[in-house]
């Protein structure tokens, strides 16, 4: 029994001591891991405070909020050069409406930067499906200080409660206990980076001077730009699940504040004094299902959404009817190829679509809202 205890104690004590060892941490220069992201997140932003600091530094007049759909479509510097407006792309891959609301609430508004316009780039029913990607983004929601908000509880309280059974609570507590006992995120980041870097060194056959370039090229070779046409981009399991529900009519627009974050976004924009603009993207026309009963109800849903948004003094644009956005520009259902010429072509189309509205809003910032051109 003594020996069994010794094995158990040693097995737990040694990793615990190592994971709390500050001397080793300093010597190996261990750092907090970066925010997990499917693709590239907004550079340098790790949490709400970091986001606010970044916005204060950039002081944009136009903020674009979104996810990987925005990441692949828009390059900050290119669009800025094209439009002549100082803008900032606040986008995190894999996020949906709940996280977009948090970005507005905990980064944009409290930053003190008063943008003239905030554009949210969305797809189909993103704005009224608050539960999508909430599980995936649990860590990010924590970093954006989300759960304490009353409106978060209003919209997602019941949903999150349904996910947390007593058993889940028990396993979560146990998991948190392990994390406290053996905090390993820094070690994990360090060790995995070491493995990757060593592999890169070995594959460079001694000449590793171009490590960052090769890393970038490897990321590009394995990026969504090269995905098979049959696969659907990033980890879209929750989206797929939500899309399946979209095949069951009727699809109705619901503007009640306990059903989605949309009314809360609108209210926030009104209180903070910026114009809120929603831009619906066009999905890959080659992969869009033919018009059927479900599609017809979706059209009605979008018409209701547009009418409601505009009635609230916000703006709505829709690129889905744009013939120049063709299937050849896409790598999957929703992401476009990020090759510079493709992205630039898209940005030109996008800017042509929104220019009258954005230019007018920039000129009349602070004036009474008008209907979108």
């Amino acid at each position, binding site marked *: 029994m003594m020996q069994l205890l010794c094995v158990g104690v040693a097995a737990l004590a040694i990793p615990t001591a190592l994971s709390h060892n500050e001397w080793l941490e300093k010597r190996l220069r261990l750092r907090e891991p970066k925010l997990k992201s499917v693709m590239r997140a907004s550079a340098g932003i790790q949490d709400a405070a970091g986001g606010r600091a970044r916005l204060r530094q950039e002081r944009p007049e136009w903020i674009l909020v979104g996810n990987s759909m925005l990441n692949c479509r828009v390059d900050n510097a290119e669009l800025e050069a094209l439009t002549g407006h100082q803008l900032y792309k606040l986008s995190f891959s894999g996020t949906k409406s709940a996280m977009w609301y948090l970005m507005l609430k905990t980064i944009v508004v409290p930053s003190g930067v008063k943008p003239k316009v905030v554009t949210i780039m969305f797809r189909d029913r993103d704005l009224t499906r608050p539960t999508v990607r909430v599980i995936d983004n649990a860590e990010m929601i924590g970093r954006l200080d989300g759960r304490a908000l009353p409106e978060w509880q209003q919209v997602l309280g019941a949903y999150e409660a349904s996910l947390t059974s007593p058993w889940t609570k028990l396993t979560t507590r146990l998991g948190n206990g392990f994390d406290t006992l053996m905090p390993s995120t820094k070690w994990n980041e360090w060790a*995995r980076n070491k493995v990757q870097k060593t*592999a890169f060194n070995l594959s460079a056959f001694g000449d590793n001077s171009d490590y960052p370039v090769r890393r970038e*090229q490897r990321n590009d070779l*394995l990026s969504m730009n090269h995905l098979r046409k049959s696969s659907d981009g990033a980890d879209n399991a929750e989206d797929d699940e939500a899309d399946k529900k979209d095949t069951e009519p009727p699809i109705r627009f619901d503007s009640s504040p306990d059903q989605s974050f949309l009314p809360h976004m609108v209210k926030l924009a009104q209180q903070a004094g910026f114009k809120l603009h929603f831009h619906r993207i066009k999905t890959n026309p080659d992969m869009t299902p033919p018009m059927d009963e479900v599609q017809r109800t979706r059209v009605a849903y979008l018409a209701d959404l547009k009418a409601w948004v505009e009635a609230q003094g916000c703006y709505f644009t829709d690129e889905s009817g744009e013939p120049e956005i063709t299937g050849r520009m896409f790598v999957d259902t929703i992401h476009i190829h990020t090759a510079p010429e493709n992205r630039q072509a898209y940005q030109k189309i996008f800017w042509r679509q929104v220019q009258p509205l954005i230019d007018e809003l920039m000129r009349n910032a602070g004036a009474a809202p008008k209907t979108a051109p």
Partner: protein
Amino acid sequence: MIFQSLDYLIFFASLLSVYFWLPARGQNLLVLAASYLFYGWIHPWYLILISITTIFDWGCALGMESATTPARRKLFCIISVSVNFIILGVFKYLGFFVENVTALLTAVHLMPSPVLLQIALPAGISFFTFQSVAYAIDVYRGQQRACRSLIEYATFAAFFPQLVAGPIERAGHMLPQYRATRRPSLTTVRSGLVLFLWGLFQKLAIADSAAILVNKVFAVGDASFPVLWGGVIAFGVQIYADFSGYTAMARGSARIIGIELCPNFNHPYISQSPSEFWRRWHMSLGKWFKEYVFIPLGGSRGGAWLTARNLMIVFFLSGLWHGAGWNFILWGLFHGVLLCLWPHLTRLCPVFGTAGGKAGIVFRVVFTFAIMHVGRVLFREQDLAMIWRHLTLNPFATTLMDWRVGMGILFEAVLYGLPLTLIYPLIEHYRLLPAADDAKMQTWKWTWAQAALAALLIFGLLALRSPETGDFIYFQF
């Protein structure tokens, strides 16, 4: 429930808190209840299927034993085996069959629209079906006495550590273990715990890390030769660590509660020929096919042609066992052809046999490793057009950057897989995880060695665990 979850840790700790206080019958009942909870956790309706087949197979075996004539005995055996295969066929292959028949009829304009049949596949159905079939045949052959106790048999049929992904056990090995009260020694419990940790390390640190690379490579549609093959080698690391990790966790869990499961792997990547590989990889399935298909068909006694036929049948069925897809069938046939051709190859070129000394051994190990990984492409890739694309890639139509990226993927996977070639041989060499009581392990020197290994595995897990984890690959079979 999966091994690498806190759910399992709580479940298993709760089981242990009661288990050792019970007599043999009580232990069996508890393990049975735990096994059904474990399986029903995945999906409750799976329990209906497994309990019905269990009662049916148990009854048929008793029927065989009490049959007064050989014909009746045979009938019971045929019924038991057929029902198991029908269940397997319906759940695993009916969708595939209907899909292909309708595709064929649609192609010749005999059917206006394709029919899609979607039947949920119960986890581990191929494993527990094969185990039940083996039991029925063993009882029929008189190699195994029919189990009188339904509880004992049901515990054997649904034993949670090996229920969903094996090893495929024989009743002759397992049932006697259920008859006595299990009071494993503390050194055996220790050994089981560290074996479980070793499996956990293989899954979370090696297999899941390699999986990230593999998934990326197989998701792109235009992978160049070096990138693809870097990904294939990474898949070799992934599938070995994944399956071997599962087996280690299964054996570790079972050992803690006093049940010893058979090993499933024996360093497959140092094999010098395909046949040796199959004696070292998924050994319990290999033995099953040898015992219940290859030998009854005549084995290698009927000359070259009959042996080749038997090998092709075995590997065709083995491919089909792995999955209802053309890629698995091709994978099986590929290995069948390889095994048929290998003796001829050794005659033509002795270095494929035993010639060449140490250099010959290295050559054979590398060659076998490479050729087995050609098969991995068929195993991993389900799209036949993509398989053709992958296998016809031109290694010269690539850039230096492609080679560097491909080598980078390969080296990364190999680095993650290093513990398989460094730690595991040490464990074996020093017999650090003995199955039974070992006086050596009661000495303090070896106790500390085991403690150091456990600490190393836990810290390795913390430092190297993958940010993403998924089901075990073999769960789908």
